[in-house]
């Protein structure tokens, strides 16, 4: 899993950047005091206890009725307002939140996430009958396809289509999607591409010792190493079926062939996407999706203020409107919260993205200095700057609450002193004999981050540091901090795991072997004890047994090495039109899920 850093990097970095923008847009409220306690986040649906592997019966269709299903009727058009245009429709290329959520409607993967109305998530078989059976200590995974699966033209979906869907990921144009399965099958980094340089297009295929399809219903993966979390990896949108004679390579990006309840009717790149019912989709095979509305009309170019105003006004087609990723705009949060009419058409939920302030351990070698920094950082005030109670939730350790095995440990007492503990920090600094230590604090030059810089500087100076603020152009921010010799002491980064297992968090962020330009070990932590422990926990064949071990390791890293201090977990504040029902939160992707939405 260590090997998949690059691609995941991109996912996390861009998503985190997106989350940054969104959270930048989700500050709010104001103008008078009022009853704020009722305005805070609702029930926390993104906690580890909510995740489990589903059984074969969980994987059978049809999907459970959504909340308020009595009002549900067939028909109607759902309007979706999005800020950024989709980069891709090809499921093989999809990795960003907006498209991940969108592809649920027209693409099915081997497994999927079944979210119930209480926010409990089960990994279930989607195209497959269950979450797969492993042999060989987790090196071999076998999936069986369900009966009655059909393409949008009525032809059956077979294991040959799944094989094609996976093999085409080896082609050189498939650059933007996740690479877990390819790397597990054929080698680290981008070396897996050598196994099948042009994908399946020249008539070549992966040998059956790697990817086997003994019959029309069965597909067998032979991984190089054991991978206990394979059912999660096969839930990524690119591990699904693609029909060979509909595959126009790059052109597939504009006309994906649907296996889900909706199909592409009209796509104007950069402007709009219309999805209409796929009449050949069989609800009995699908444990996740519904097919209530006739149409989804997705349009791009709506800033958060624009979409919030329209959804709040609740007029015309906006009455049936929602947004996948646009959060409620900062300046309108309080307005939305104070509007009693929005009570049943909004939620605030924790996203899988966790923000930390990294300490560059090449420069800050004294652990007491790093500890002092960790105590001094004013997480509460930082949350205030990024948008307050609907934008972020205080984080106390290095795992996000969404990660399996998460425990709310708090080694630096952040819950008790969210705005930092300058006295303790000062004492530690004195002990280290580094009073007045100079800290180069880098930040992306946006108006929100400028303000964060103000509170961070203040807090650090109170603790006895001297701060040199370096603003970095926000367009080159990701590259600047990704350089190993970046010359900065501390800077913020965000990370979102692809699935709620800590093997997608701890190894890429804190394994000393992955320090490289553009890699995610931003703190440059290189502790042999940590590396050894990572290997040990990674080798545990059962995800559930490994989960508490990861938390222990993360806590050990935070208390002994202090490579970073957690600040907050991002929140998603969504609003939709009063004419829609069945909107629920998708805890894995971190956005509202359209697959069971209906028009009242």
């Amino acid at each position, binding site marked *: 899993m260590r090997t998949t850093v690059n691609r995941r990097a991109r996912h996390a970095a861009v998503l985190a950047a997106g989350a940054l923008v969104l959270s930048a847009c989700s500050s709010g409220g104001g103008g*008078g005091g009022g009853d704020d306690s009722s305005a805070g986040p609702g029930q926390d649906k993104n906690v580890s206890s909510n995740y489990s592997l589903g059984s074969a019966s969980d994987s059978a269709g049809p999907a459970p009725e959504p909340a308020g299903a009595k009002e549900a009727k067939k028909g109607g058009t759902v309007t979706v307002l999005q800020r950024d245009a989709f980069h891709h429709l090809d499921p093989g290329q999809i990795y960003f939140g907006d498209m991940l959520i969108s592809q649920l409607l027209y693409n099915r993967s081997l497994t999927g996430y079944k979210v119930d109305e209480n926010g409990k998530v089960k990994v279930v078989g989607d195209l497959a009958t269950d979450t797969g059976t492993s042999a060989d200590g987790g090196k071999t995974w076998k999936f069986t396809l369900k009966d009655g699966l059909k393409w949008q033209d009525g032809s059956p979906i077979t294991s040959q289509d799944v094989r094609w869907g996976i093999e085409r990921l080896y082609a050189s144009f498939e650059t933007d999607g996740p690479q877990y399965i390819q790397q597990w099958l054929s080698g680290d980094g981008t070396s897996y591409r050598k196994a099948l340089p042009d994908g399946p297009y020249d008539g070549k295929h992966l040998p059956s010792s790697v990817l086997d399809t003994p019959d029309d219903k069965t597909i067998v993966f032979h991984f190089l190493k054991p991978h206990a979390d394979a059912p999660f990896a096969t839930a990524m949108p690119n591990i699904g079926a693609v029909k060979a004679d509909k595959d126009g390579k790059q052109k597939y990006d504009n006309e994906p062939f649907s296996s889900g309840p909706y199909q592409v009717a009209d796509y104007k790149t950069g402007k709009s996407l219309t999805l209409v019912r796929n009449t050949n989709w069989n609800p009995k095979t699908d444990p996740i999706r519904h097919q209530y509305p006739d149409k989804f009309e997705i349009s791009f170019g709506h800033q958060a203020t624009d979409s919030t105003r329209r959804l709040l006004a609740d007029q015309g087609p906006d009455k049936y409107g929602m947004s996948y990723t646009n959060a409620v705009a900062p300046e309108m949060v309080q307005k939305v919260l104070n509007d009693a009419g929005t009570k049943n058409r909004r939620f605030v939920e924790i996203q899988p993205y966790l923000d930390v302030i990294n300490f560059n351990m090449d420069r800050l070698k004294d652990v007491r200095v790093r500890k002092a920094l960790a105590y001094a950082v004013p997480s509460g005030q930082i949350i205030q700057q990024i948008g307050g109670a609907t934008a972020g939730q205080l984080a106390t350790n290095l795992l996000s609450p969404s990660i399996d095995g998460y425990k709310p440990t708090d080694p630096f007492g952040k819950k008790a002193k969210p705005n930092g503990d300058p006295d303790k920090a000062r004492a530690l600094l004195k002990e280290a004999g580094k009073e007045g230590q100079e800290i180069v604090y880098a930040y992306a030059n946006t108006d929100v981050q400028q303000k964060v810089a103000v509170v961070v500087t203040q807090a650090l100076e109170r603790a006895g540091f001297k701060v040199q603020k370096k603003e970095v152009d926000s367009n080159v921010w990701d590259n600047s901090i990704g350089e190993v010799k970046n010359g900065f002491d501390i800077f913020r980064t965000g990370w979102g795991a692809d699935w709620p297992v800590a093997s997608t968090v701890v190894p890429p962020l804190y394994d000393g072997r992955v320090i490289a330009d553009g890699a995610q070990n931003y703190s440059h932590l290189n502790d042999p004890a940590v590396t050894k422990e990572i290997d040990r926990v990674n080798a545990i064949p059962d995800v559930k047994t490994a989960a508490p071990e990861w938390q222990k390791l993360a806590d050990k890293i935070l208390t002994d090495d202090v490579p970073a201090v957690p600040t907050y977990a991002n929140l998603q504040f969504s609003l939709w039109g009063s004419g829609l029902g069945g909107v629920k939160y998708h805890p894995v992707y971190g956005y509202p899920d359209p697959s069971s939405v209906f028009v009242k």
Partner: protein
Amino acid sequence: MTSPSPAAPATEPGTAPAELIGRSPGQLMRRRFRRDRAGVVSAFVVVFFFLVAVGAPLISMVYGKDPTTTYGLNETGLLNQFGYPVQPNGGISGRFWFGLEPTLGRDVLTQLAYGIRTSLLIAAAATALCVVTGVLVGVTAGYLGGRTDYFLGRFIDLLLAFPQQLSFVAFTPVVYALFVSPEKETPTYLRVLTLILVLWALGWMGLARLLRGQVLSLREREFVEAAKVTGASPWRIITRELLPNLWTPILVQSTLMLPTLVTAEAGLSFIGVGVVEPTPDWGRMFANGAKYYESDVTYIFFPGLAMIIFVVAFNLLGDSVRDAFDPRTRR
């Protein structure tokens, strides 16, 4: 020198007719200006703004707050959980006269005073530099004419063709990188100097062009011819004959330029190449206010009102000054 044939002998090298009482044009101008009530009021307003700018530390001392302390973060009960003032009207109270800044909780009054200070200092310095450069280049080009005029003209064209904002964004980081070690914070004085320099470098061309045209038409007039015939040096002709006739456009242009530069500076701060937090800045206050207005309209009220009053007063002042100089243009 492209001097035309000498004209009739000049009567006197003086500038204006002074037949009856014998007032200088300057005296006449002052008399006319004093009679213009709007002009006088706006002059006072403008002076007031400059006083506020200069006296910001004094205001802060008397009032007992400073612009960088985050009162709302240091004390509980001032800002709510979304970072907005708990008290109505943006947190205006006996303690915070103009209210509190959302999210950071700083005092708006001192922020505004210091912000005006930053913005006016930068804009005034840039205006002064622009005017000096504009006059020098414009008069030189107009008076010398010929090849000098041609090359200066093309140089002005070149500079005018630069997209201003884009050049600012592109050049400022380069300047910072040149002068600041990568491990040190960019000092505020360097930011201010850089701002003044970029505003100056791309701000003087309009005035220069205008003055060139004026000089071109003036230098053919009889009194200039007369001065030439009497053997006056070019320097004397420029300072004694031409400049006094150019004061009107120069003054009007600079009174218009200053508020424009204040807004330009604000724009630069907004896109992140101007001064950054925690240096107070009028323009950034304005930009933030525009963001918060849905929930805290009071915050934009004072900086906005101040900006409107300032720009209107300065424009009225410019009008009055022109009227006073040149009563024929009076409406």
